[in-house]
């Protein structure tokens, strides 16, 4: 085995990992604000990719206009999902929430299939596809776009959660919803915000990954699950731990696919997921929490 090869796998793993990280943070934001694991998270990734294609190809909007439009529409979809499905739930038990978000995810996926068909489509890369050589390995400009945009989004995220009133209110909800409500924070509004932010982030992830992986109505399933895996590695944190989790997962998966077997590539993420849930459900970096009854 050569060093070049390993470097190559690691580099491409990093950019897939950045995508997982973005999706994983989306999971964490909703989980922290509401205690819900949103099984429909992956569908917003799909919506980002498919809508960009839709605006670009069918409505002939240029790429710099198509992307914001796609993000905007996906965000509205996230908002509607919260208002129409999550909020009116009469018995919000964990099982009901699991079932309703699964139902929502199937419905969104089905509607996408109805609107855009079952075909896989390619999206043009943002700036050419001339490979760039880095120490024996090569990467595509799109990989750099992915890494760059991920860093920017994480920075914005950090700023929002630590330096704005609404971000701080959201963190308060994550610590203790009841107490947050008592000091005058509108908890339901924060729940809505969390859905808006994470659907927007999901859409961005879908848009930047689309030129590499192609887009289809069912692309969100696997991406969503792996994003969740990243969030679990990061202990459901909406910060750096989940980013590390995503990158770790991306690199491990890419190395596993390259060096062991590509057929079992998808299984790697789920084996890691199961092992972590069994052995360290608090995440790779977290301290165990005592359970309150």
């Amino acid at each position, binding site marked *: 085995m050569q060093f070049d090869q390993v470097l190559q796998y690691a580099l491409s793993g990093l950019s897939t990992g950045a995508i997982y990280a973005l999706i994983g943070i989306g999971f964490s934001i909703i989980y922290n604000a509401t205690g819900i*694991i949103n099984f429909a998270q992956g569908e917003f990734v799909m919506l980002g990719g498919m809508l960009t294609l839709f605006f670009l190809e069918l409505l002939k909007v240029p790429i710099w206009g198509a992307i914001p439009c796609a993000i905007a529409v996906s965000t509205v979809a996230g908002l509607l999902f919260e208002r129409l499905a999550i909020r009116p739930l009469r018995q919000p038990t964990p099982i009901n929430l699991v*079932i309703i978000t699964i139902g929502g995810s*199937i419905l969104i*996926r089905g509607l996408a299939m109805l609107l855009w068909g079952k075909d896989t489509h390619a999206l043009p890369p943002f700036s050419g596809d001339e490979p760039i050589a880095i120490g024996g390995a090569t990467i595509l400009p799109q990989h750099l776009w992915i890494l760059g945009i991920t860093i920017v989004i994480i920075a914005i995220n950090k700023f929002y959660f630590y330096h704005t009133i609404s971000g701080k209110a959201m963190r308060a909800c994550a610590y203790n919803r009841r107490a947050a409500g008592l000091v005058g924070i509108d908890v339901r509004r924060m729940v809505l915000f969390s859905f808006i932010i994470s659907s927007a982030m999901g859409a961005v992830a879908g848009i930047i990954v689309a030129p590499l992986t192609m887009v289809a109505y069912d692309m969100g399933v696997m991406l969503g699950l792996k994003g969740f895996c990243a969030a679990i590695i990061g202990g459901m944190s909406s910060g750096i731990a989940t980013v590390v989790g995503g990158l770790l997962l991306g690199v491990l998966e890419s190395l596993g696919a390259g060096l062991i077997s590509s057929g079992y590539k*998808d*299984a790697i993420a*789920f084996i890691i997921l199961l092992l972590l849930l069994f052995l360290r459900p608090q995440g790779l970096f977290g301290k165990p929490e005592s359970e309150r009854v």
Partner: protein
Amino acid sequence: MKKELLKFAAFALLVMLMPLAFKGGYLMNVLVFVGINTMLSIALNLLLGYAGQISLGHAGFFGLGAYLSGILTASYGWNAWLAMPLAAVTVGILAYLIGFPILKLKGHYLAMATLGLGIIIYIVFNETVDLTGGPSGLSGIPNLAIGGLRFDSDVKNYYLVWGFTLATVLFALNLANSRVGRALRAVHDSEVAARVVGVNSRLLKVQIFAVSAIFSSLAGSLYAHTMTFISPASFGFNFSVELLTMVVIGGLGSIYGSFLGAALLTLLPEFLRAAHDYDIIIYGALLMVMVMFMPGGLVRGVPELYRKLIKLKGGADHA
């Protein structure tokens, strides 16, 4: 208890007389699937409705049963009646062993973990091409036979499958009214309270998980021997969700509800032939509507709706 028995007898009689109404025909084949799906949704309901533990990986156990039976009979020439219990026991042991770590998880985490388990099993079906035939499937699985009687027609398969399904119904009904059933309901309502009164909730959850997997495996074996061909596509995540939909539509914890859900979801696509690709949208919408407006399922929701309507009418009369 006597009423319970009468209800079951009526149900069994209805099942037995069904083929007379259809006299062969294409619908018989669909009714065989209703039987298999009823068995599966009862198995899932034992876990979800009785014990309150979700699983999104049951298609995996169903598939394991089908593949173990299929491979042992088609590739190794085993007797199907031997392969079937062996598959069930193997799947049961597997579920028992994995049940300890997996059922320590709760709610959303349990859902994700079982989902991951199901997908791993699905990937193994696809990748172990030498054993399973991979994505193109495994064919040449023999029908079941007793002496000279081969279960090779739809009507024969109907009685075979429904024989097993009725036994499953009886088992589940018995379980519900037993000490174990009451303990399970206690775990469902409050695990802590159940433990306080001396229910070994951890072991109980693992046991019911294994029992549920065993029934799923049996259903899988029956599926393999009636279809004589299996491929991984039947055992993916979508099917796990379909099973969940059946249980939720029928009503959590209700055995006849499971039958209702399974029958509805198996027959619906047959009547919606034109909308073939879009049944997945209907599942999604059904799941959401049921959880939002009828969280008790059809079995409890419809009578409640009926009572409300009566009251409404009665109110109008008084006014």
